[in-house]
Structure formats: structure tokens, C-alpha cells
């Protein structure tokens, strides 16, 4: 294992652990207001200080990790769950109407940045974490479809696929049994990257009010609340922002590390 992978895995584990522990324990109730103790800077009682309602920031960050991870994870799940089969199908029927249709549809979805999808969805159904998940998820579909198709196309030229065809297996079975396991590494790496982009997107959407709504804590909304107070309570902005940076940095390093680790050829080529 390389340094990037270990460091990235370490950072990611800390965040995931914080999110998991928050289900059973947080230093304070993250919704409990305590106005006399408002806007405290980090201290012995409130490790990361308190916000303008006197809520404990450390507890809010822990619970906020849950929101970020849940939204990004489900969004990547949607992207993989729909994108990978589409990519496999397009590669199996290369050049066919199906392939052409899937790829053009991909191009179309690509023209809608996730923020724009979120704006459309919110305009219709109103804001909420579910809509953020759908918006980021839809944006992920073409990413996975493209990368799967690209990798699968070169596999279809290989002898072992020819052998599978000669033995009488159909395109769907070959895709599932022989193509998919061979593109899995690539998908894991891309999944990590999309996961980190999902965390960033969720934060952005919550910041502009299109994501998780109160009382669900989210890092993006904490930043939106902090904005008017940044001049006299900068820690309100610095702490949630650092949480986002640490999470995304950890995931990106893990993605880089995984790519090198899973594909030694790439490490030599670079």
C-alpha cells in the first residue's frame, strides 16, 4: 500500500467513524439551544465552540457528516446502479441504435450540471435532501456509463471474451460474468472520486438552500448560517469548511492511492 492510500483511508475512516458514533453518542444534543453560551470559541466544554444559538458545533459536525455521507453515497449508488448497466449494454451492442441512443442521452444529461438539475427539481418539488440526492445521482449516471463503456469496449476485443462467445454465452451473460469483474477496479476508483465530488456538491446545494432542510444538520447549511457572522465569529465558518476539506481530501487521496495500488502498470507509467 502506498502513502496516499494509507493517509486518505485514515482521513476517510475518521469522518465515517464520527458519522457512525453520532448515532449513539454526541458530546451534546446537536439541536439543544443554549443562548447564554452562544458564539463561544473552542474551549474545554465545547471542543469546537458554539453557534449563534449556543448549539455545540462538534456535535453538529458529527451529525452533519451523516448527512454528507448519506447523500453522496446514495447519489453514487444511483449513478453506478444505472450508469454501469447502461455502459455495459452500450459496449455489448457497439455501434447499434442502442449504443447510439445511450451515448446521446448521456451527452444530454452531461449538459445539465448537477446544480441546474437541482434547481429544476427544487422548482417543482421544493428543497430537501432527497432532491439533492436525485440531482447529484442523475449527474453521476453519464459519468459511470461513459467510463464503463470505454473500458468494456477494449475488453470486447480480447481473446477470453471470444472464447466465452464460442462457448455459447450471450452478450448479457458475458457482460456480467467477464466484463464487469474486469472493470470493477476502475469503477471503485471512479466511485471514490464521485463520492468526494458528491460531498462537495451536497455542501454547495445545502449552502444555497437546495439541500437538507432544518433541523437536519448539514455542513453546507452551517456555512450559510455562518456567513453573516464571519466578521465576529470566524470559527463558525472555518470549522464546517475544514470538515468538508478533510473529507474530500481524504477521499481524493484514497482514490489516487487505490488507482496506483490496483493498477501497478499505471504507477510505473507515471
Amino acid at each position, binding site marked *: 500500500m502506498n502513502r496516499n492510500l494509507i493517509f486518505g483511508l485514515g482521513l476517510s475512516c475518521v469522518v465515517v467513524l464520527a458519522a457512525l458514533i453520532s448515532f449513539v453518542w454526541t458530546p451534546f444534543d446537536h439541536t439543544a439551544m443554549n443562548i447564554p453560551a452562544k458564539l463561544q470559541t473552542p474551549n474545554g466544554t465545547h471542543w469546537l465552540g458554539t453557534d449563534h444559538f449556543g448549539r455545540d458545533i462538534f456535535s453538529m459536525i458529527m451529525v452533519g457528516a451523516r448527512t454528507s455521507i448519506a447523500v453522496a453515497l446514495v447519489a453514487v449508488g444511483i449513478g453506478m446502479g444505472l450508469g454501469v448497466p447502461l455502459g455495459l449494454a452500450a459496449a455489448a451492442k457497439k455501434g447499434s441504435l442502442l449504443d447510439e441512443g445511450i451515448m446521446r442521452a448521456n451527452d444530454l444529461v452531461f449538459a445539465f450540471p448537477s446544480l441546474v438539475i437541482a434547481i429544476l427539481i427544487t*422548482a417543482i418539488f421544493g428543497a430537501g435532501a432527497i432532491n439533492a440526492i436525485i440531482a447529484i445521482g442523475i449527474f453521476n449516471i453519464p459519468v459511470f456509463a461513459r467510463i464503463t463503456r470505454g473500458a468494456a469496449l477494449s475488453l470486447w476485443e480480447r481473446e477470453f471474451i471470444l472464447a466465452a462467445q464460442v462457448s455459447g454465452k450471450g452478450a448479457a451473460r458475458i457482460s456480467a460474468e467477464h466484463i464487469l469483474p474486469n472493470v470493477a477496479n476502475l469503477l471503485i476508483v471512479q466511485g471514490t472520486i464521485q463520492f468526494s465530488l458528491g460531498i*462537495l456538491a451536497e455542501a454547495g446545494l445545502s449552502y*444555497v438552500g437546495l439541500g437538507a432542510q432544518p433541523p437536519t444538520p448539514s455542513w453546507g447549511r452551517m456555512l450559510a448560517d455562518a*456567513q453573516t457572522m464571519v466578521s465576529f465569529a470566524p470559527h463558525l465558518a472555518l470549522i464546517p469548511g475544514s470538515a468538508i476539506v478533510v473529507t474530500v481530501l481524504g477521499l481524493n487521496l484514497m482514490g489516487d492511492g487505490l488507482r496506483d495500488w490496483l493498477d501497478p502498470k499505471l504507477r510505473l507509467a507515471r
Partner: protein
Amino acid sequence: MLRYALKRGLSLTISLAVASLVIFFVIEIAPGDPASFMLGINAEPDTVAALRTELGLDQSKLQRYLGWVGGMLTGDFGMSYTYRTPVAEMITDRMWVSLPLAIYALTLSTLIAFPAGIYAAARRGKPGDMAVMGATQLGVAVPNFWFAMILVLIFAINLRWFGAGGFAGWDEGFGPAMKSLTLPAIALALPQAAILARVMRSALLDILGEDFMRTARAKGLTRRQALWRHGLRNAMIPVLTIIGLQFSFLLAGAIIIEQVFFLPGLGRLVFQAISARDLIVVESVVMLLVFAVISVNFLVDLAYALVDPRLRSRT
């Protein structure tokens, strides 16, 4: 080249047509009737009906779709439901903030990323390379709106070099207007520059291993000369792709950054429109953003063909 451009142009038109259909019918699903929303719950049914006729809401979906598209082609985006002013006018006003911001940011990001990427590639594996790569790793992880808040904290609140937000307006002159766009543009540009620098570096490193680079060195060019004369042009393909992709992220990012700096751009327009259920404005702004993304990708495709003649014969 002309045939290639025509072919790409046709696919651009089809994409735009399909995108407009999708946007129109997605907005159609939205619950609530704009006319009754505008008039409030106490409105008489015949007043609502009259307004529906005035807004053209009583026509069939197909008629309204064709009317909407036809209008946009002639620059008529319809009337805002809440402001009762032409949407085209509102969008044009806001465009004068969002578009310069996106271009300013793209320029900054390119100006930072190119030297950084070239520097890192030329010093591959040395401390300089590691420092640049470390900085880009951090740059990619920083959310631009948070970075914007940090910039405000440092340069507007503590140092007082810039205003914390708002837009001076172009009437005040080029200098003050650009000054109020500077912090937003930096906030937008740095994360993008980090990505671009990484792409630039790896594209150059790929090129450095090619046979024609060895030939260039063998005929007596120094490493630097070979890089400038033969390396850069060939490394431009992946770099152009990313610049094209980034433009859409910049436009979308600009919408968020405008919130941080209270800039009266398209982003604020669309968020106000969402909360006022002014769907015709939402529809038009979204269409415009999608149009921008699709057209930029079209231009990038054409730029490819100019940089690499081999691509003209394909697709």
C-alpha cells in the same frame, strides 16, 4: 473542416432541441397554476381565467412549447409572472454580471494553471513538483463558496482591500466593476486552476515519453525548447477538454459564488424566481445555462479539430 463543423453543428441543434423539450416538460409537471399563484387565494375564478388567457396558459402544451421556443429564437423569453417585466430584459441585466465573472475566473484559472502545470512537469519528482501537486490536491478539496468566505474574511474584513460584497455596476466604470468581481473570480478560479494544473502536468508528462519528443531532443533541442515547440501543442487536447468542461462548472459555480458576494447575477435571479414560483424565469435561465454548456462543448470540439487535424476525419 467545414464538413466536420456542419456535422457537429447538426448534433448541437438536436441536443438543444431535446434539452428544451426536457426542460419545458419537467417544468410543466410542477404543481400549482402560475395565474392563481400570482393573484393569491382570494382571486375570482374569472379573473384567474382572464390572466391565464393573457399569459397563454389556456393553450395546449404543444402550442405553448412551440411558442416558448419560437419566442426564444427571436429573443422573446416571455413575461415574468411576478415582476411583469420581459424575462429577456431581466436575464440580459444579470448576464452582465455572471458572464464577465465566469470569463474573469476562466482567465485567472488558465493563467495560474498553465505555468504551474508546466513547471511541475518540467521538474517531475523534484520538490517543486511535489509542492505544486500538494497545493493542487488541497485546491481540489476546497469548496469554492467556503474559499470565498475565507477571502472575504481576509481581504474585505481584515485588510479592507475589497468590499465584502455587492456589485458596483458597469456604469461606475470598468475599474470599480472589475474590482467587485475580483474576489468572486479568485474564489471560482482557484479550485478550477488546481484541476487544470494537474491535467496540464499529466498531459505534458505523457507527451514527454513520446518518440517525436525523443527525436526533437536528438536533433539538438534542449528539453525546454522541445517542450515549448512540440510538447505544448500536443498536450492541448486533454487540456482543452477540461477547459470546456470547466466552463459549465464555472457557470454553475458562479451561481453559488454570487450568493456569497450578494452579486446581482443569474444565480440570485434564479433563486428568487424559485421562491416566488416564477417558473418562466427558472425555465429560461436553465435553458440559457444548458445552451451555454452545449455551445461551449461544440466550440471545444471545433478547437480540437483546429489543434489536431487528424480528428477532422473522425466522427
